[in-house]
């Protein structure tokens, strides 16, 4: 990428192969996607998890409060404190509160006019496992980005003469929010499900009492 101290002038007069023209913007978009995803992943591992021994990660937990109206069965509906407001707390992974999402390049349009200057045909013959000969033919197109518009005005011999010749290679990039990766969704689902209280059966309660004796 050119810095402010360097001059960068695209040279459209050079012959390029068609794959390079198409793949260059796609590679750039892919690199941008990787940069954004890597940043978020590092953030999650650094701030939402604590690294323990044996490279295990444990989620950073936060406390949430819950307020609920509870009916006091010893009172009658006419009593003022028949429904009591009870506040309790529960733990939740910090990860569940972070609005994680995937902002990524989801559409790249490469628009260019190309003047084909040469075409190379390659043929390779290889023998497969069963002894048959497989002939592979490949064609490689080379060309130049052709002039998209030319405007001439005035006398070419005068100083007022203007000539505008431009070559066009337009790259339109559209970024949007993509669905979260399946792995992140699974982790989120796992943690949010763990918020649910577990019903302890009478049998297990008795076992707990026996163990404590």
């Amino acid at each position, binding site marked *: 990428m050119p810095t402010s101290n360097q001059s960068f002038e695209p040279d459209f007069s050079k012959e390029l192969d068609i794959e390079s023209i198409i793949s260059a913007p796609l590679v750039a978009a892919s690199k941008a996607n990787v940069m954004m995803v890597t940043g978020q992943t590092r953030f999650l591992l650094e701030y939402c998890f604590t690294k323990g021994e044996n490279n295990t990660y444990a989620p950073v937990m936060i*406390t949430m409060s819950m*307020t609920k109206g509870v009916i006091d069965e010893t009172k009658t509906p006419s009593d003022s404190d028949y429904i009591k407001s009870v506040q309790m707390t529960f733990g939740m992974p*910090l990860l569940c509160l972070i*609005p994680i999402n995937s902002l990524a390049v989801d559409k790249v349009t490469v628009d260019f006019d190309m003047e084909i200057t040469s075409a190379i045909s390659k043929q390779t013959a290889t023998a497969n496992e069963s002894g048959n000969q497989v002939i592979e033919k490949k064609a490689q197109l080379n060309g130049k980005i052709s002039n998209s518009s030319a405007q001439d005005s005035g006398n070419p011999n005068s100083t007022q003469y203007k000539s505008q010749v431009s070559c066009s290679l337009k790259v339109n990039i559209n970024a949007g929010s993509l669905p979260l990766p399946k792995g992140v969704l699974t982790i989120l689902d796992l943690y949010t499900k763990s918020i649910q209280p577990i019903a302890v059966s009478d049998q297990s309660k008795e076992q707990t009492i026996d163990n404590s004796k």
Partner: protein
Amino acid sequence: MINSDQSIPCPTCSTKIPFDTRQLLLGIQFVCPNCQSAIGLAIESKAIVQETMEKFEAVKSKSIN
């Protein structure tokens, strides 16, 4: 970069309670549409959530710029 379907399952009835973290930080409580339980961020966890959200915003702006 807003995760539109952020929700917590209600600890009482498992119904999804939609929430917004920024509003939780402001002290707003979100009510379960089924059992009317209200959930909010406990005061002791406000600092860590605030700090993490600020760092998350910094990571987002860094990756965009």
